[in-house]
């Protein structure tokens, strides 16, 4: 008996050993041999395997034609789990250092008078999606369009919602789409109506990566499909309107052994990054990208990945000054502004990477570098009298077919706002003013579940009140009071209902009247920006000190518009000095003093000439005397 048990255990170990070793074994692509040439990726397409089975190769004549799995196809040679722990995929990992705060996902719903920052990373000022009742699947519905997959996309099973658990069988998980970055084919489809983003919007997570490839086309949707739908089996239904996802591969893509060639590169073209990381400034109500210059580094010939780089672990460098405290990427010290342009290595010079010019900063007192980040003078739009409205890919779905092109669509972002970042230096930030419904217990504000909010707001904010372009609805204080009253039954014990918006906190007083107050919870959400970097000849201070040091300087006294859902509060603004935490009177006085700076220079130089003249005169007299003594004529 014991002998039989021992033999069984041994057999289990022998059978399971390859499985254990497969997870930890180094794969072919994990350690490149050092060649800068890109290996040819002529590889089989592998489908998502059934539990416990090996993945099947996809052939063009298969029935049904399955989407290929990135995890299996790319994962055959590259350790998917190591890659999956990288920065683009690890937002939901609580063990990852969140680093410097960045752009959050913004849940914007005009009908609910809401624009609220969400993030799985614990960035101050953001809320976790589940606080608003946003499950991982709902999160993907809202934002998956411009997510590279993996991360929360493979955590869809972590939900208490039984409907979503069942739906997961239909949609599949959203695996990492390696092609989103690494495919250099001009036919990569991320944003078109049949591309990656729209597959995610339709709930076709399993098919999304396939749809992005230029040799595949995906039609149909998982929305409305019954629970018994099996993507591996033919779908039969009486409802002829249902069209499950279907893949069509280009037959010419399959070559020898039905392998497919992928145009893969480590040197990722900037268009790949731009799909998720584009900015569009709005000038006079219009967005015209041809009028805006790209980042100077791009124009100089660099790619995004020259600076934002990583190895197999995909722990990308973000490029901020103190990133070494948050990341163990060995290239972090030489991948920031200072690292490339000013870095001083201990054993060898490190500045000048990629021919980065070493700036002289002639005429700029060194105290500026203690108080200002590099981006303060070099990044973003040239400061104007008031902040510039802007749209971004992730906030406004720009680059995705059918995205609202209106410059007024929510969320309302603006920039540059100069404020202190974590290292105490002033840096340009993007800003938006959160607006949301919440309950307040003591000093803590907790946003309400969006379903509850929408239920209440739909009774007050009618269709007629909604903006045709996605802007704020026509909202009055009376409307806010009414909605708060409707939300009252949902209030927790000991809490009071509030509405945060336009920098203020609104609540009903004991008499039932709406009162507003300032609150730290109503503070705007800001995140530092670094792009687009302007050329050196367009940096602040390049002309003279008065680029910043004048009494009407946008850098110090520009107006930051306060975005409020309330029409009555529209048009308000805050002076930049408030965000910079500078005393207004002193800053004005110091700026005013620069009027007299040329006089100071003239007086000082003339005085120096006079003093030098006196010294020279009497030194020459002394020299004359000495010569006389030496020659004996004295």
């Amino acid at each position, binding site marked *: 008996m014991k002998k039989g048990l021992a033999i069984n255990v041994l057999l289990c170990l022998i059978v399971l050993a390859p499985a254990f070793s497969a997870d930890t074994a180094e794969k072919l692509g994990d350690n490149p041999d050092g060649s800068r040439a890109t290996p040819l990726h002529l590889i089989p397409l592998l489908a998502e395997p059934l539990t416990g089975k090996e993945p099947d190769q996809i052939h063009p004549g298969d029935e049904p034609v399955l989407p290929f799995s990135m995890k299996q196809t790319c994962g055959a040679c590259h350790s998917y789990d190591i890659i999956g722990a990288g920065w683009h995929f690890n937002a939901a990992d609580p063990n990852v250092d969140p680093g410097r705060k960045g752009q959050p996902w913004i849940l914007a719903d005009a009908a609910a008078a809401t624009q609220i920052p969400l993030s799985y990373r614990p960035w101050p000022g953001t809320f976790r999606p589940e606080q608003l009742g946003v499950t991982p699947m709902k999160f993907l519905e809202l934002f998956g369009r411009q997510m590279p997959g993996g991360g929360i996309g493979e955590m869809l099973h972590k939900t208490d919602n039984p409907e979503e658990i069942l739906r997961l069988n239909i949609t599949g998980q959203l695996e990492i789409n390696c092609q989103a970055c690494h495919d250099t084919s001009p036919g990569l489809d991320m944003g078109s109506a049949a591309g990656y983003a729209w597959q995610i919007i339709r709930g076709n997570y399993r098919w999304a990566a396939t749809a992005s490839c230029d040799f595949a086309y995906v039609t149909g949707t998982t929305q409305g499909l019954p629970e018994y739908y099996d993507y591996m089996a033919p779908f039969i239904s009486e409802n002829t309107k249902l069209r499950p996802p279907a893949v069509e591969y280009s037959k010419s893509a399959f070559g020898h052994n039905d392998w497919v060639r992928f145009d893969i590169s480590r040197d990722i073209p900037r268009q790949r990054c731009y799909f998720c990381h584009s900015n569009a400034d709005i000038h006079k109500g219009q967005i015209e990208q041809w009028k805006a210059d790209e980042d100077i580094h791009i124009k100089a010939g660099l790619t995004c990945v020259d600076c934002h780089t990583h190895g197999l672990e995909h722990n990308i460098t973000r490029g901020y000054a103190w990133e070494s405290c948050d990341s163990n990427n060995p290239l972090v010290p030489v991948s920031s502004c200072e690292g490339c342009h000013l870095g001083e290595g201990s054993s060898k010079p490190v500045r000048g990477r990629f021919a980065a010019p070493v*700036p*002289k*900063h*002639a*005429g*700029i*007192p*060194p*105290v500026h*570098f*203690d108080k200002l980040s590099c981006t303060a003078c070099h990044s973003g739009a040239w400061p104007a009298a008031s902040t510039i409205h802007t749209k971004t890919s992730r906030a406004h779905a720009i680059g995705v077919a059918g995205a609202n092109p209106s410059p007024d669509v929510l969320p309302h972002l603006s920039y540059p706002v100069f404020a202190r970042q974590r290292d105490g230096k002033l840096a340009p930030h993007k800003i938006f003013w959160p607006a949301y419904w919440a309950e307040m217990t003591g000093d803590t504000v907790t946003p309400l579940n969006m379903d509850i909010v929408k239920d209440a707001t739909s009774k007050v904010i009618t269709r007629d009140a909604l903006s045709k372009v996605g802007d704020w609805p026509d909202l009055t204080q009376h409307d806010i009071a009414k909605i708060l009253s409707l939300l009252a039954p949902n209030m927790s014990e000991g809490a009071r209902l509030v509405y945060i918006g336009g920098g203020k906190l609104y609540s009903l007083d004991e008499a039932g009247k709406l009162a507003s107050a300032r609150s730290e919870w109503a503070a705007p959400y800001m995140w530092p920006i670094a792009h687009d970097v302007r050329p050196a000849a367009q940096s602040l201070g390049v002309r003279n000190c008065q680029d910043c040091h004048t009494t009407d300087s946008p850098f110090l006294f520009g107006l930051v518009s306060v975005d409020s859902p309330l029409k009555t509060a529209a048009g308000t603004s805050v002076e930049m000095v408030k965000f910079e935490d500078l005393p207004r009177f*002193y800053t004005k*006085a*110091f700026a005013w*003093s620069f009027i007299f*700076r040329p*006089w*100071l*220079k003239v*007086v*000082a*130089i*003339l*005085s*120096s000439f*006079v*003093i*030098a003249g*006196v*010294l020279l*005169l*009497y030194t020459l*007299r*002394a020299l004359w005397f000495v010569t006389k*003594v030496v020659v004996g004529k*004295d």
Partner: protein
Amino acid sequence: MFRTVAITGFVAVIAAIVLHFVISRPKFDDVFGKDRALRILDPLRLLVLFVTLLFVEQKWSLVGALRKLVFLLALLCFVILAVTGFVPRVVIGEAISGWWLFIHAIAAGIFAACLAILAVLWADENRLDKNYWPWLNRILNRQPKSETPPEKYEIKLKICFWLILALSLPVILSAILSMFPLFGTHWQENLLLIHRYSTLFLSLFAIAYLYLAAISEIEKTTAK
């Protein structure tokens, strides 16, 4: 480093002044008279005397009035510059900024102009034209032109004057040149260093000059 040097310098100069005063101080009876009341106030009387001695003798002419006015203005600016320049850096341990910098910049221009005027007005009477170093004349086998012996602190005062003038050039130029787009960050830091150290030595010589001028006047008064 600068903080240490500055503190050492000020302590050394003040200690030297105090030591010199203790050793060679004129008797209070000679200075204030034997019939003075409340002798316990003698230190206060001495302080007031020092201050009044800073109000240099005024000659009844436009140039005389200008001399006194410019000197007092320079003295006031020197105090302001010293306080606004050294207190943040040496006492608080921070770079000069905010209102300290604002006031420092205002006083700086006025001080530079006053120094230039004083240089023109006082250069001639600070010439080294007497038999200051008899030993040197012996070595050079030279007969001095004037047999008038120098006053007790005259040579020290004149040397301090010329050192103050000479140091004022790097003080002014290091600050002003940094305002032009001529020097990059490395040399901006060097200019700041030059400004700090030349200002420190100028301040020390100025303190010494003021003390020597005051003690010289006191001794002249008691000698009478």
